[in-house]
């Protein structure tokens, strides 16, 4: 390591000026100066400096969790590579769920969302991920909010009333009701949404929101061939109010805490809120297995119940629905008819 150029003023020779020296200290940053490179990155909260503040610590000092890498994605990486130790990863992940509000693990966010992630991918900074977690709670609320407010005049503002959509704290203002966001998907549409159940008071309102989300918003995604068919099929369902009253080709279902798929509307609203995990607008033809499933629940072990493919069909279900189709013009009425059927005994509704 020569420092020939450094302090070369004494030696009096031009050749003592070191290009290396210059390159090291003079290369200019080509990125935007002001906001700098706010590239994003997700970061695992790895603990602070020794003797420093409290951040959650991972198991080994100086080590960090490697949860999954692309090596676990055989389709992506062609070359053979050693498998990294993932034994520590799951425990680290669960510990990583504790946040100190600093470089919190975005991987725990991923785990909460139920998707397995490659470490550090997509390349989003931890800071942004932290903010996103808090944003998510307001994401669907925003969508809902704007739909609601569009009906009001431009000049009227939301007064300080209840409403209570979303959750925020504002320097001592009353903390409003928490959000309860669940995912909602509709068969044939890859675009899922999230909906705040606590922003609705009834099945009817929920259904209306879902209809707005899935039928009224035009997708700007270029559909693939198969998707075009689905969209086309969807467009035949013209009257939104009939979407979920049993009169359309779709029915609203939900997955409860035990992993079972149930028809929405069977239980009182509050009870529904306490057990729903996610929603699915299912094609009627595929929703036919829900009745016997309920009856079998008490004898079955708790396990995740897969989707419609494994459920036996039940013709009477569809037939019953078509029978009431013409006489019903509201979602709730339709569901009340469903409720009258002996779908299960009262023990189903007992929750520990």
């Amino acid at each position, binding site marked *: 390591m020569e*420092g020939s150029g*450094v302090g*070369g003023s004494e030696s009096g*020779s*031009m050749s003592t000026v070191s290009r290396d020296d*210059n*390159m*090291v*200290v003079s290369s*200019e940053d*080509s990125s*935007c100066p002001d906001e*700098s490179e706010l*590239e994003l*990155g*997700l*970061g*695992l909260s*790895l603990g602070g*400096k020794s003797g420093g*503040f409290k951040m959650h610590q*991972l198991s080994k000092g*100086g080590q*960090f969790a*490697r949860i999954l890498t*692309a090596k676990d*994605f055989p389709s992506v*990486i*062609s*070359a053979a*590579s050693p498998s990294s*130790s993932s034994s520590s990863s799951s425990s680290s992940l669960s510990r990583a769920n504790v946040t100190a*509000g*600093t470089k919190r693990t975005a991987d725990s966010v*991923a785990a909460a969302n139920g998707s397995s992630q*490659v470490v*550090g*991918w*997509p*390349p989003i900074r931890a*800071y942004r*991920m932290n903010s*996103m977690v808090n944003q998510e709670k*307001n*994401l669907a609320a*925003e*969508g809902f909010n*704007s739909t609601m*407010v569009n009906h009001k005049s*431009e000049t*009227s503002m939301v*007064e300080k009333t209840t409403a209570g959509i979303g959750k*925020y704290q*504002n*320097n001592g203002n009353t903390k409003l009701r928490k959000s309860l966001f669940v995912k909602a*998907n509709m068969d044939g549409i890859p675009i899922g*949404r*999230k909906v705040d159940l606590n922003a609705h008071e009834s099945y009817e309102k929920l259904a209306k929101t879902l209809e707005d989300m899935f039928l009224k918003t035009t997708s*700007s*995604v270029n559909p693939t061939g198969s998707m075009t068919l689905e969209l086309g099929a969807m467009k035949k369902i013209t009257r939104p109010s009939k979407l979920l009253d049993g009169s359309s080709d779709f029915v609203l279902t939900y997955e409860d805490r035990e992993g079972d798929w149930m028809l929405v509307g069977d239980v009182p609203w509050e009870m529904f809120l306490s057990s729903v995990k996610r929603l699915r607008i299912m094609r009627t033809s595929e929703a036919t297995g829900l009745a016997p499933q309920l009856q079998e629940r008490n004898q079955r072990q708790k396990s995740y119940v897969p989707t419609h493919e494994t459920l036996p069909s039940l013709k009477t279900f569809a037939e019953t629905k078509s029978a009431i189709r013409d006489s019903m013009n509201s979602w709730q009425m339709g569901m009340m008819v469903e409720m009258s059927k002996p779908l299960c005994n009262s023990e189903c509704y007992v929750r520990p």
Partner: protein
Amino acid sequence: MGSYSSELKRSKDSDESARRSSFPDEVLERVLSLLKSHRDRSSVSLVCKDWYNAERWSRTHVFIGNCYSVSPEIVARRFPRIRSVTLKGKPRFSDFNLVPENWGADIHAWLVVFAAKYPFLEELRLKRMAISDESLEFLAISFPNFKALSLLSCDGFSTNGLAAIATHCKNLTELDIQENGIDDKGGSWLSCFPESFTSLEVLNFANLTSDINFDALEKLVGRCKSMRVLKLNRSVSLEQLQRLLVSAPQLAELGTGSFSQELTIHEYEDLESTLSNCKNMHTLSGLWDAKGIYLPALYPACSHLTFLNLSYAALQSVELAKLLAHCPRLKRLWVLDTVEDKGLEAVGLNCPLLEELRVFPADPFDDEIVHGVTEAGFVAVSFGCPRLHYVLYFCRQMTNAAVATIVQNCPDFTHFRLCIMNPGQPDYLTNEPMDEAFGAVVKTCTKLQRLSVSGLLTDLTFEYIGRYAKNLETLSVAFAGRSDWGMQCVLGGCPKLRKLEIRDCPFGNAALLSGLEKYESMRSLWMSACNVTMNGCRLLAREMPRLNVEVMKEDGSDDSQADKVYVYRSIAGPRRDAPPSVLTL
């Protein structure tokens, strides 16, 4: 400036003896002190010994892109009159959790030297450095003239450190705390600015989460009449924002707090009218939890807006479109992909002067929910914004054809960062690799300085890059390539390459070693989860003594594998503060 120095050199050569009398050092220094660009200064310092000296004595700002490439002693010896320092530390992939926790890049050793050699230091700008509260306090008391502190993506400190700065830095003009891993212990630090303190021009504490003492903030803003940049954190409400703006209508850059408090009509109108008084505003950010219904309050303040950062506001397409209709002068726009392609169409329609677009994913980890933006949005922007030259785009699908169209519309790209979020995903229409997309980019965009590639890529992409990307300085690669050949192409081409960062690619020792001569002209190389072995790294270290070759080992991995390799040139020798998990070869 280049022609100026060569002109001077010619005249000198012809009139050697007269030189000294007609060009005294003081004059030369005075002239050179006007040079701001580091590259120009480098050129100037190479002309001759006198110019080298004049340059080093006249330089007041030093930029160090890799804190381990040089030691503070060396810097202090060469540049005696530094007043402003910019330092960058950890490799960029530390942002994505790929660098061990205690890797290094601690500022303290630098501060100690600076305190001795640059007691008149005024500015310190750090990126990806580790800085403790003790260091912050040391900084605050060691430099009586200290004016500007900017911390971006740093960690190791808490709000206590900020309190020390606020307490002791009597001449502070800038406190810019951005995206750091900061331990937020509460907002009382802000109250530490003394009553007599009035010099603050830039205050950015958007990073922090806890409530600050609003009273103290209001008074601070009220007495700092020269304040031009104010970026609040989320705890500041709309109502409070309005009160602050009343006393600071001169703000040029505003970062709001939470934009979602429920307002009465009266409060809304107050906000609207206060915002309309902000005639100087050219940058707007924050807008957390922005409610669409309140956005119109911003419209009157947007007429001169050049930078709009909506990346924390989950807007829908219609809301964005309405807002952009009021921002005709926009040059830089950051958004979340909640705006979807429709929102980007609105960008193309409303922002003809747009130069930079960044689209961040609102839901990057959710595989089931597929919304966000697609290639259509990007194409729409390219049609409407021919001046576009900087893009960061996170999406879930892309096609080669779309990218070809985009660069045809916007051939002036300097920064093209495309992140197709699913690793190794092909063109979703043709199922082919995305080679041609990036080929189009490098062939068409001759000014390209920075490129991030993604999607399914073969070695062909790298052939293109090596052959065509003559101005490329930074290249980021992930989950791409087929063989060593890819990386060899890049190292064999790209004459201006400075930073190469690679993860999860099938490049091995042959590729690594093909760049032997190149690495000394680069700032750094990062390779993680590739096929490089310890032997390959040792060979590199042996052949190139002026490079630091560091390997980060992971628990349980093969002894022979070099899991993460970081190679950088340095005149300071191997570093002595590496943690045990980092091996210096």
